[in-house]
């Protein structure tokens, strides 16, 4: 497969303009750690923008970071750590989940709108995406948004690019809002709750003013795979994370336990490891022969969604994050059948409201099964028109989200 490797944004624009002129589709990669996410791209050529890397500007006191799109996450995190800052949406590393290796980049994180456990409180990648420069499907360099934290000048194009999986434009420079890193963190573990009891309790927790920033529930079989000893003791685990200034965390942990029940506590280091596992889906990664789904239902409906799926597939394993707003589900591929369980999963989701994405499955399955939730016809038609407004020839990551565009 030929790989085109522009050394800067201008070269990338030329390549795309040429590809547009020749109706030649391109698969866009940077660190290539998420190539297996979404539908396989219908393209023989790869546009590898990994040379577009490096921090352009970072103003900690302004909470603003601008980077070239292919800047590795490790470099971003190192720079932010120096000033005790972070990406509040806690982007997870999915290399274990997707199994392809590679180097996660900030551009990839933004393009896939990847958020971790703190999303439930702090918002998603898209909520921190302030502005960008990009190249559209005609090879035109364009920009939108700004480099300040508050801006409503023109359409909010950043929202549209986040989660577009590179199908609308190729991001070349991105500006994000960053946040102070919490001084400390603690996690409360409540043992032995059934799923529906746990989700109701987590909902109650999110309605307190104790600023809980992680709300997950792991059934016994899943919790046992955690590398954090107090989590892996045998039973189901319901986890609540509190972060912030030390005196505040100490008070809020007490107050939360007084309200919801006492449990075991994870210290800051254990807490960090546990929530990393939750974000990286590592408790569901037992090996080959399984497919993994990511479900975003109406949170309170999550237990019912899972009941429906469990009834159909004895091999189903799952856990909840985001207080039920996120279900990670693993199915034995053979039992799930040729559609990877899509009919059952989406049937269960239809009653709950929300969407389900087939995240980890062999390429042939991802080509045959709608990976992203199918849209009602009028919305699908609008999504197509939007795609065409950026990429009229359909050359940027064609087929990545939906077949045919």
């Amino acid at each position, binding site marked *: 497969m030929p790989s085109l490797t522009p050394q800067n944004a201008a070269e990338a624009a030329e390549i795309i303009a040429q590809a547009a*002129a020749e109706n030649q589709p391109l698969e866009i990669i940077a660190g290539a750690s998420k190539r297996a996410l979404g539908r396989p791209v219908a393209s023989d050529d790869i546009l590898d923008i990994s040379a577009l890397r490096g921090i352009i500007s970072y103003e900690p006191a302004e909470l603003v970071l601008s980077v070239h799109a292919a800047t590795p996450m490790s470099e971003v995190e190192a720079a932010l750590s120096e000033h005790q800052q972070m990406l509040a949406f806690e982007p997870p590393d999915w290399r274990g989940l997707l199994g392809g290796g590679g180097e996660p980049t900030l551009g990839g994180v933004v393009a896939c709108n990847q958020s971790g456990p703190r999303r439930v409180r702090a918002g998603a990648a898209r909520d921190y995406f302030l502005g960008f420069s990009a190249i559209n499907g005609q090879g*035109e360099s364009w920009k939108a948004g700004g480099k300040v934290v*508050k801006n409503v000048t023109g359409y909010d194009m950043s929202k549209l690019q986040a989660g577009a999986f590179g199908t609308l434009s190729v991001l070349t420079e991105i500006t994000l809002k960053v946040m*102070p890193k919490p001084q400390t963190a603690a996690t409360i573990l409540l043992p032995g709750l059934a799923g529906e009891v746990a989700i109701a309790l987590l*909902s109650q927790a999110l309605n307190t003013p104790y600023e809980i920033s992680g709300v997950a529930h792991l059934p016994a079989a899943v919790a046992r795979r955690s590398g954090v000893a107090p989590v892996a003791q045998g039973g189901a685990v319901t986890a609540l994370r509190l972060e912030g200034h030390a005196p505040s965390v100490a008070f809020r942990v007490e107050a939360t336990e007084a309200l919801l029940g006492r449990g075991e506590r994870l210290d800051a280091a254990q807490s960090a490891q546990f929530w990393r596992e939750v974000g990286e889906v590592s408790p569901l990664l037992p090996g080959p022969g399984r497919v993994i789904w990511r479900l975003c239902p109406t*949170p309170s409906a999550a237990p019912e969604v899972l009941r429906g799926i469990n009834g159909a597939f004895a091999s189903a394993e799952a856990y909840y994050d985001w207080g039920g707003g996120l279900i990670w589900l693993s199915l034995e591929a053979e039992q799930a059948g040729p559609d990877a369980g899509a009919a059952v999963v989406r049937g269960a989701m239809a009653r709950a409201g929300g969407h389900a994405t087939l995240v980890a499955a062999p390429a042939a399955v991802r080509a045959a099964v709608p990976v992203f939730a199918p849209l009602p016809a009028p919305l699908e038609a609008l999504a197509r028109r939007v795609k065409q407004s950026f990429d009229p020839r359909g050359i940027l990551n064609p087929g990545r989200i939906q077949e045919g565009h």
Partner: protein
Amino acid sequence: MILMPPPDQAVLARRAQIVADLRQIVPGDGVIDTEHERRAFECDGLTAYRQLPMVVVLPSTTAQIVGVLRYCTEHNVKVVPRGAGTSLSGGALPLEDGVLLGLGKFKRILEIDTANRCVVVQPGVTNLGITHAVQGLGLYYAPDPSSQIACTIGGNVAENSGGVHCLKYGLTTNNVIGIEMVTMDGEILRLGGKHFDSGGLDLLGVMVGSEGLLGVVTEVTVRVLPTPPGARALMIGFSTVEGSADCVAEIIAAGIIPGGMEIMDRLAVEAAEAFVHAGYPLEAAALLIVELDGVAVEVDHLVALVEEIAQRHGATSCRASQSEAERLLFWAGRKAAFPAVGRLSPDYYCMDGTIPRRRIGYVLARMTQMEQVYGLRVANVFHAGDGNLHPLILYNANIPGELERAEEFGNDILRLCVEVGGVLTGEHGVGIEKRDLMGTMFNETDLGQQQRLKCAFDPASLLNPGKVFPQLCNCAELGRVHVHGGQTRFPELPRF
């Protein structure tokens, strides 16, 4: 002066027929055509610009909105959506040849869902109305534009409204999780819902802040948050504005994100103090108000940290509120800053640029120079946490030429904001007010891409045309495939 697109004479000639047809779709008193009654809709919060709409339609059901938009698409009639009409940028300015579509009858709160921390409302519910509906449950809706008592959530969605608590709690876009909307061709779409994130392209994200150019919002699902148990405010005086800005930078660098952080300059402080007697330090060149919210332990801890930072940065005075009454008093002057400034001058013009905060000293010095050039005074209040300036230009509309001078002054301020790396508008929207300045921030390619997106939603450009973009969009022209890198190799092949 800002020019609007020339009216379509063919539409104006059919006005009587159009009014009659619209009455078939929206019966009863929902269609307003007398000049006297239309007058109430001739402007929004940008009162210097007025235009009588061709006809006002006040539907009461989504089906009627679908009917009106379908009819207008079929008959090539422009539509301007309107909430409460509090826009400060002219986003709801009517068109002479357009239907003004008022959403004021959509006032119901449809569902309060505490388990999922959200509320489903019709677009005509006021911003504050949402908080009132849930405050008994210990919840509130976070974005709080200063017009929150009057402005509607539908308008907030259109403008992506902010408020004083944005830095910590986000703008409208960060707090709206679902909408129902109707496209110009009458299609009902649901974007988002009670769940997290979008399953495909985030069309909800681009609808919020689209200033009524992409669709008419008919239902909104907002996230509501637990009310912080307490809050305290600090009132800190500085002998220079730079000193106050440095203090803000240091607070953030120390890892503190206050619920609110506001700076007022001397003229704004003097006006506010004379108006509400909040005990503001009149000797200060700048007053910084910092509010910390959360559990009491946290608030007290952070108040002490902020006091220490303020002292280190040469604060000339520093008072922390000791009671809720005192906290509200500290805020009273800031909240009354606009009417207080209004007492200094018959008219004022409120600007809304955002700058990187570190440039505040330079920007204020340049503004002082401009005051000399234009012979007009400026009072400054701004959302210090996010660098969002609200310069208030004092003028007298009864003096010929003074409004134009104030507008030109305002434009110069906004050009300056862009020059130092900022943006034209932080929360008020582009509307007509900043439309002709879009070129200072975006080039033709940038704007062309934005307008092609508009074409995907509204190919005939009938929805709120003349706003946001300096040139009307011709979708056929914009839609042409441009070939830059070379010649199309197989011109006979079908494209797309």
